[in-house]
C-alpha cells in the first residue's frame, strides 16, 4: 500500500524532466469538454503512456495526455482525458494523477464532467457548480493502509468543494449571462445508465445530477489538502416520467455546445486566483 508514495514520485520525476514549473492548479476535463486545452499556452503535452504509473483512458472522446502550460497567467496541468471506474481501473489508480498534481505543487483542483440532470429545473447545456457530492460508487480510493505522508486516515468531508469558489463561479456566471446553479452531484460506477426507478431514487436522496466520475478524484484532493472547484455540464435530462433513450453522440454534441461557457467559468476562476495571489 505504501508504494503509492513511490509511484507518485516516479511520475513527478518523469514530468519534471519535461516541465519544471510549479502548477497553481490541476485541471481534469470531462467527456466532450477537452476544448479548454486550446486556451492553454502549452509548454509541453505529455502522453499518458510516457508517464510512469498513469493509467490509459479507453473512453470515447477522451484523449490521453497531460497538458502543461499557462492559463490566465497561472501555470496549470490539465488532464485531457480521464479515467473511469467502469473501465475497470482501481480507484487508487484513477486518482493517482491528482496526487501527482499535488506533489508537483498544485493547490487547486478544477474538475469538470458531463452528467445527467435529475433536477427538473435544469435543461441540456445547464452548468451546475458542484456544491456537494454523494458517493454511490460502492468503493473509496482511500481504502487500505493510510500513508500519513499523503493525508489523514479519516478526511473530513463537510466542505469537499470550496464554498468561496462556488460563490465566485456563480458570480462570474451571472456577469457573463451564463445559466448556472449550484447543486449536488451523485456518482455511480456505471457503465449502464440508470433505470427510471434509479433516477427517482437518486433524486429522492438529494442529488441534482448523476455521473460516473469526479467523486474519487475529489475525495483524494480533499485527502491531500487541495481546494476543489467542480463543474457539471448537463448533457441529457433524466426525467423518469418522460425518459428518452440516451444517445452518446447527442450527449457529446451538447457537451461541445456548452463548452465555451465552461471555459469562461474556469478561466474566470483562475483569473480571480491570480488576482488573489
Amino acid at each position, binding site marked *: 500500500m505504501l508504494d503509492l508514495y513511490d509511484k507518485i514520485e516516479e511520475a513527478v520525476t518523469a514530468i519534471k524532466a519535461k516541465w519544471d514549473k510549479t502548477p497553481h492548479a490541476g485541471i481534469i476535463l470531462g467527456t466532450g469538454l477537452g476544448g479548454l486545452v486550446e486556451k492553454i499556452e502549452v509548454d509541453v503535452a505529455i502522453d499518458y503512456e510516457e508517464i510512469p504509473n498513469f493509467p490509459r483512458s479507453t473512453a470515447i472522446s477522451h484523449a490521453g495526455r497531460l497538458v502543461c502550460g499557462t492559463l490566465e497567467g497561472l501555470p496549470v496541468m490539465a488532464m485531457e482525458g480521464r479515467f473511469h471506474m467502469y473501465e475497470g481501473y482501481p480507484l487508487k489508480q484513477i486518482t493517482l494523477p491528482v496526487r501527482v498534481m499535488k506533489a508537483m505543487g498544485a493547490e487547486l483542483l478544477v474538475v469538470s464532467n458531463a452528467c445527467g440532470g435529475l433536477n427538473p429545473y435544469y435543461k441540456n447545456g445547464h452548468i451546475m457548480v458542484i456544491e456537494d457530492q454523494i458517493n454511490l460508487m460502492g468503493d*473509496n480510493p*482511500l481504502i487500505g493502509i493510510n500513508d500519513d505522508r499523503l493525508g489523514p486516515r479519516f478526511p473530513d468531508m463537510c466542505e469537499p468543494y470550496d464554498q468561496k469558489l462556488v460563490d465566485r463561479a456563480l458570480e462570474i456566471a451571472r456577469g457573463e449571462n451564463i445559466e448556472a446553479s449550484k447543486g449536488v452531484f451523485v456518482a455511480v460506477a456505471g457503465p449502464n445508465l440508470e433505470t427510471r426507478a434509479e433516477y427517482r431514487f437518486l433524486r429522492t436522496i438529494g442529488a441534482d445530477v448523476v455521473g460516473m466520475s469526479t467523486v474519487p478524484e475529489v475525495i483524494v484532493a480533499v485527502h491531500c489538502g487541495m481546494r476543489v472547484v467542480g463543474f457539471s455540464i448537463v448533457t441529457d435530462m433524466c426525467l423518469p416520467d418522460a425518459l428518452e433513450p440516451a444517445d452518446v453522440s447527442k450527449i457529446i454534441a451538447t457537451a461541445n455546445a456548452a463548452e465555451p461557457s465552461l471555459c469562461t467559468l474556469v478561466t474566470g476562476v483562475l483569473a480571480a486566483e491570480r488576482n488573489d495571489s
Partner: protein
Amino acid sequence: MDAIREKMLEALAHVRRRFDGEVRVGIILGTGLGGLAEYIDREAVIDYRDIPNFPHSTALSHRGQLVFGTLAGVPVVAMQGRCHLYEGYSSADVGMPVLLMNEMGAKGLIVSNASGGMNPKHRSGDILVIEDHINLMWDTSLEPLAGLRRLRCNETTVVPYDRGLIEIALSVARRENFAAHRGVYVSVSGPTYETRAEYRLFRKIGGDVVGMSTIPEVVVGASCGMRIMALSMITNIARPDAPEKVDAEDVVEIAARSEPNLRKIVMAALEELSQ
C-alpha cells in the same frame, strides 16, 4: 461459508494452544472503549498478529489483542481493537473472529462502536442501543455465508439484535440516569467522513447514526444464532445545515468520557447472558 470456516479453524487451533477454557460471551470493543478490557480477570491474552488469519488493526486507538477471562463472573472473550473495511479487509475477514468466538462456545455477542449521530434529538455522548441496521458497505464477501438462510427464515430472529437485551440496556440507562436511545445504525466503508449530502441521504433512508464497523461482525454472529447486543457511542452530531469538521481525536475523547455508562449496560447484559 467454507473459506471463512477453514480460516477460522486454522486460527482456532492456534488459539486453543494458548487458551482452552470456557467462553460464554464474545465482546468486541470499539473506538475509545477498549478500557472495558481492564475489568476482565485475565486468563490469557493473545496478540492478533500471533494468530493465523486474524486481521490486525491499524486504526487510531485500537490495540489488537484477544483477551480471555471472566467479567462480572462470566467467562468471556474480548476483542480489544477491531479491524475495518477501510483498512482493506473484507467483511468476511472482519467477521471471522466472531465465528471463532462462537466455535469456542460463545452464545452471546456484545459489540460496541463509536458513531456519528444524525438524529437531531440525540446529543454527543448519548448511547444508541442498535435496534436494526442498514448495510451500505458494498461488500459481498459474506453473501455465501450459508447460515444467512437461517437468519432470514427464523421467525424469532428477523432482526439480528436481541430484543430482550435492548430492553435491559434501556432500563439500565433509566436507572442510572443517562441518555440512551433505540435506533438504526448505518454502516459505510469509509474512511472519509460523510459529506453533508450523504448525511441527508442516510437520515432520509432511516438511519439514526452512521459508522464504519459492526455490521460484518453482527451478520456473522446472527448467522450463528448468537444473541446480540450492539451499543453505539454517539461521539458527534452531524448537522448538515451547520457543518463542523469532525476531528478523530475529539471522537476518541468523547467516547472515553461516556465509557462508564456503556460499561454499566454491558455488565447488566452479561448477567442476562450468563443465565
